[in-house]
């Protein structure tokens, strides 16, 4: 301590002798340091937001990976064929999921041997029981709660992997709701989007990069693409509603309308990235082609386009990921309908993953919160893998000229 003090004093003395010593220097350095720390802390804040957000989603969503099952006695007979509620003991009825009880007649139809037997079976529990077991806020009558505790003591309550979430569509019964129909809807919608925006986007990029002269028409298109990229997404929904649904009469809520609307939105992304990819192909390739007597189209089709293709694919996948997360325009064209069964064609009413998340988020039951968060985790996983594929493609096939 004292040595340090001595050194400091010595330095101070030296500095006083030094005619170039600026007494404000210390202050300036201190302020420079403060500035750096401030800049760093704002970056740290931004990342802290991300960490907080992701951990919040994980904490809320991961419990939904498991669902409570209870072991109860089920009587299979003619009576339960008509009113399946009767097949479960009256005291346990409110503990067992309504959706699971509804399945009982179908089980008997599929498996006639079950008839007139009584079996102990693991069956899906009600969402309130599920919330109670997981330690969340729950609404259970005292009688039912005691019954659950009793079953728990007998090891007749179990948390199991929630496969229903990935194999079922939406449901008004929380424990029976799944993301499958929304996932299929998303795939249909994105197929339409890609089928429309990929060819048009790439063709526009080829025209602007390879053929267009720098005239008024080209400039208008370029300014337009920039503007299109910055128009709020909800206005594309208004366009979809006014033109595709009201003018062309396409079916509302369908993957076709949603896909077309999203196609117009992803167009600028694909055009911009495809242009960058085409631009990065060196001119010597084109010149060599012309030198060998190829026509312009042949040069573009056989040489420039294949070389630019990885770049174009990367941009397309990024555009796809963005379209996949888009909700607002799809709500406007009606893709928030209640869809329990997966759509089987692009003209049927469908919903997409973000819209499903939106619907669940508005549900009053507590059990839907974890469903929503799980839906979000599923969506984010898909998006991150899409982006990872894009990065991989870029790294793997990128040519350095």
């Amino acid at each position, binding site marked *: 301590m004292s040595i340090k003090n001595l050194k400091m004093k010595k330095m101070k003395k030296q500095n006083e002798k030094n005619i170039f010593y600026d007494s404000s220097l210390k202050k*300036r*350095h201190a*302020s*420079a340091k*403060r*500035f750096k720390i*401030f*800049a*760093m802390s*704002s*970056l740290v804040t*931004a*990342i802290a937001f991300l960490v907080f*957000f992701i951990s919040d*989603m994980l904490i809320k969503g991961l419990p939904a990976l498991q669902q409570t099952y209870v072991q109860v006695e089920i009587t299979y007979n003619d009576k339960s064929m008509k009113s399946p509620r009767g097949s479960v003991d009256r005291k346990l009825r409110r503990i067992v999921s309504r959706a699971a009880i509804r399945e009982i007649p179908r089980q008997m139809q599929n498996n006639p041997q079950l008839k007139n037997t009584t079996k102990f079976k693991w069956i899906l529990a009600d969402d309130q029981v599920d919330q109670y077991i997981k330690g969340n806020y729950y609404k259970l009558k005292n009688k039912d709660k005691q019954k659950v505790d009793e079953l728990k003591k007998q090891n007749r309550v179990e948390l199991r992997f929630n496969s229903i979430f990935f194999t079922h569509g939406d449901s008004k019964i929380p424990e029976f709701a799944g993301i499958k129909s929304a996932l299929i809807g998303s795939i249909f919608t994105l197929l339409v989007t890609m089928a429309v925006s990929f*060819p*048009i986007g790439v*063709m*526009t990029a080829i*025209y602007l990069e390879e*053929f*267009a*002269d720098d005239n008024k028409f080209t400039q*208008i*298109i370029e*300014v337009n693409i920039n*503007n299109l990229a*910055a*128009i*709020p*997404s*909800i*206005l*594309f929904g*208004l*366009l979809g*509603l*006014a*033109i595709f649904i009201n003018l062309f009469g396409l079916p509302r809520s369908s993957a076709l309308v949603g896909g077309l609307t999203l196609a117009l939105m992803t167009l*600028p992304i694909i*055009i911009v990235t495809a242009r960058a990819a085409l631009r990065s192909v060196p001119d010597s390739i084109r010149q060599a082609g*012309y030198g060998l*007597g190829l*026509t312009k*189209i042949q040069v573009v089709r056989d040489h420039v386009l294949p070389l630019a293709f990885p770049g174009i694919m990367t941009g397309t996948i990024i555009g796809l990921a963005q379209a996949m*997360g888009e*909700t607002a325009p799809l*709500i*406007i064209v009606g893709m928030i309908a209640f869809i329990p069964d997966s759509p089987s064609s692009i003209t049927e009413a469908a919903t997409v993953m*973000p*819209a499903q998340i*939106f619907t669940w*988020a508005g549900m009053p039951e507590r059990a839907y*919160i974890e469903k*929503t*968060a799980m839906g*979000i985790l599923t*969506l*984010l996983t898909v*998006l991150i893998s899409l982006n990872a594929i894009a990065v991989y493609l870029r790294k793997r096939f990128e040519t350095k000229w």
Partner: protein
Amino acid sequence: MKLNKKSNTIFESKNRSTQLKENAIKYLLIAASTISVLTTFGILFSILFEAIEFFKLKSFFYFLTGTEWSPGVEGSKFGAVPIFAGTFVITFIAMAVALPIGIFSAIYMSEYATNSIRSKVKPLLEILAGIPTVVYGFFAAITVAPLIVKVCEVIGLQASFNSALASGIVMGIMIIPVISSLSDDVISSVPDSQRKGALALGLTTAETIKSVVLPAALPGIISACLLGVSKALGETMIVVMAAGLRPNLTMNILEDMTTVTVRIVDALVGDQAFDSPATLSAFALGLALFIVTLILNIISVYYIRKFKSKYKVNSL
């Protein structure tokens, strides 16, 4: 004819049918390019025509100056001032969060960070940009809004569960990457000779940034901010999920407010007939949103052009 002449200077096509095919493909490409133009006009006209329908039924003047918005069936009033006010308050909160964090993050990334930090942090910010807005909306409604209510209770204030503050903050988080990535690009493309000159004159790094780099990059940063504002104005899902539905003319950010986009969604998901004023009002609001964001974008493009031509950068 003009097109033929030009292509002939590059190659001599002997086969007439080949040439016809080439031209056909070329016109196909031109047709594809016009689709983007058609889309913009499609948006403009589809909104414009429906908005005109709306203004035939309801007064245009009252829409801009009226303070009561009640789209009920009888005696409906469409004064959009509270809706515009709510939009601006929420946008203002979002920018108050996003601007300092975004710009200073960009400064740190481009001026201080080593390459290894940069290559790790940049993808993280890109993740922030890639999160769908519906996810931010859920986050705002389920996590941030109750948190604000609790914090306000502790300090003796009363906050709504649909407070403008919650959606504003989360919207700000969403806009951080928009501002930081463009500002980062702009600051990085300020020529190094300027920094070196300033450092050689004895300025500290911070003084160099404050008095040389930032003023040089200012047009680009302004452009980034305008882009952020336009994003905030048009943002839908966060406010639909976390902000209120009630048009509320107040400056208290702890109360619930509504925005243009919320009212558009609300008007169009209802069961009313398409030609009722309540539904058509969505298009009037959409028109206002379109015009404002278009102007912001045009100014933003102007500033970035200015920056580009000054420093002869092409990479932006």
